[in-house]
């Protein structure tokens, strides 16, 4: 990839890749490793992209795949909260609570939450990206929302349509 394009992609999407990886691993160090790997794959990619959106979707898909590659066990459970590491600083306490609550969710629920709420993908797009059924995406979203509601109470509103 050409230098200017690559540096521009890094500037635009580095935090996006980091967020997706952090949702997957619940561990900043592992997330940073994934960021390195994802952009290395972008650096070595020979084919171009049709548009900025094409690049963004490609980065999301590669990030998910890279994160999955690092999971060796089929029996991986939730990451215990105390292994999440030092908490980042947030402007407001309820934001810190949301972060903690999300990081305490099962890994597959965290990823779906990020792709839905932050990256604003539809459940159909998420299903295609993760190679799972759309109903599975909906199930995971519902389950995650219920848990966030129980934990955060008024800070997390009832389900959106």
């Amino acid at each position, binding site marked *: 990839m050409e*230098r200017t394009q*690559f*540096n521009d992609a*890094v500037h635009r999407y*580095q*935090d996006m*890749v*980091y*967020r997706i990886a*952090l949702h997957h691993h619940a561990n900043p160090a592992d*997330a*940073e490793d994934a*960021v*390195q790997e994802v*952009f*290395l794959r972008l*650096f*070595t990619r020979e084919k171009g992209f049709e548009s900025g959106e094409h690049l963004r979707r490609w980065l999301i898909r590669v990030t998910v*795949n890279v994160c*999955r*590659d690092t999971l*060796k*066990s*089929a*029996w991986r459970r939730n990451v215990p909260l105390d292994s999440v590491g030092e908490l*980042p*600083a*947030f*402007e407001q306490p*309820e*934001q810190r609570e*949301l*972060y903690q609550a999300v990081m305490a969710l*099962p*890994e*597959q629920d965290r990823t779906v*939450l*990020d792709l839905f*709420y*932050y990256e*604003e993908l539809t459940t159909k797009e998420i299903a295609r990206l*993760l*190679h*799972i*059924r759309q109903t*599975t995406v909906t*199930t995971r979203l519902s389950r995650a*929302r219920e848990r966030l509601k129980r934990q955060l109470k008024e*800070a*997390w*509103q009832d389900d*959106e349509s």
Partner: protein
Amino acid sequence: MTNREFYRRTFSQLHSSAELNWEAFACMTRRKARRGTIRRAAVIAAGVAVLAALSTAAVATGLFGLGRFLMGEQARFEVPDGNGGMVQEQSYAITLQGYSDTPESRAKAEWERWLAGYDPDKAILECIGNEPVGPFSPYDSYYNIYTQEMANELEEIAERHGLNLHTGMTLLEDPQELFQETGGDFLGPNTAYTAYLYEDGTFAFDGEMDRRGGDVSIQFMRCVKGTLTDVMLVVGEPSLFESWEYRSACGIPVTLALGPHKGLLLAELADCYISVNILMGTEGEDGLTPADLEAFADSLDLTLLTPVKAPEIPDSAEEEPSSWPAPEEDAIYLQTGIQEAAAQRFFSQFALAVETRDVSALADMLCLPMELETGDGERTTIAAEEDLYRCFDTIFSQQIVDAIQQNRYTRERADLYAHGGMVGLGTAGEIWFGLAEDGDIRVFTIQQGDGGMALRRSAQGISDGPWAGE
């Protein structure tokens, strides 16, 4: 504020701290390419039979120093041709497991002699091709075994010489990991790349010798006594080598040898043998000198390599073989969300649990509660381990056991396929498993092809398996 806004405002405060730019990646990929070249040499060194010389220097005569390590007469070996290929040449080789009369060296020599007469034209190997075979023994991959006859012969040789055989190996990408497995940083100013560490503490790595005027590539090996390691070093016709005994700075006596194209450092410690193949000799303007070799010996702290402490190596069944497809080519993953490696691991554990009648393990692997229906229409709910224990033989009938056994290539790989979002096995779809709602892999259906027995998940979700009605 909506949940979406709340979410975005929270997580927008998280930033990656990695400094990434085009220049950094350009530098990184250049370093990776260089390590890749050396790593291929490490595969040759640590993989199976021969550490190949970069050139076959002519010259010879019996050397007292190096001569004690020679493995008998010349034999034909494959050595790099300098153009990326391999060529067969007549050459001498030295053992890397002490003098030629140690049990390890004699066993290795015997194994080589036997191999020279077995499958000399590679007819058996060509017949097998790239299809997975075996396993014939727990040692197959460490000795390049591809028939039961080879496995049997190797075991007999090892037993005759009172030796163990390797059963596990792990890769250590970071030299610090290797230093943790030994007594500490034994390398000093020299460099190690990826290391291969075996279950008994034997290890090998490619690296570089720190030398004024430019680093020199090396291949470093520690062979633990008491285990047959399938390795030796081709040295050409040995006598252009000057060899001498030297007491290194750490107090360990070593044998040094220097030829036109390579240098050697060999040492015997209490419980292991050390060998370093230095990929440069005396030839050329900047050729190595005896003083360089002695300085290298002085830079190492070999005392840290003994006593050997056996590392913890993960069960080889837990490691993913390098032959697993990449995610975008993994047909099972694309259809089920389960990577083939994970599916194979799950199925191996399932098959073992059936074989050993481990009801407790099986109860964890089934998507309980399930409904059992026998051929005569009788129905039972299998909700817990006790139910499974009571109905074990009904469920795991000979037909089901045959389906499991007959559709396995090896202990680690079965003939799995994907359909309708699940992973299946058996010509009649006898076993189906997939991702349960909690994200774990579980078995949803076990059924005989003749309709004699069926165990299916109760009520919701999967019932007859995705082939029902086809």
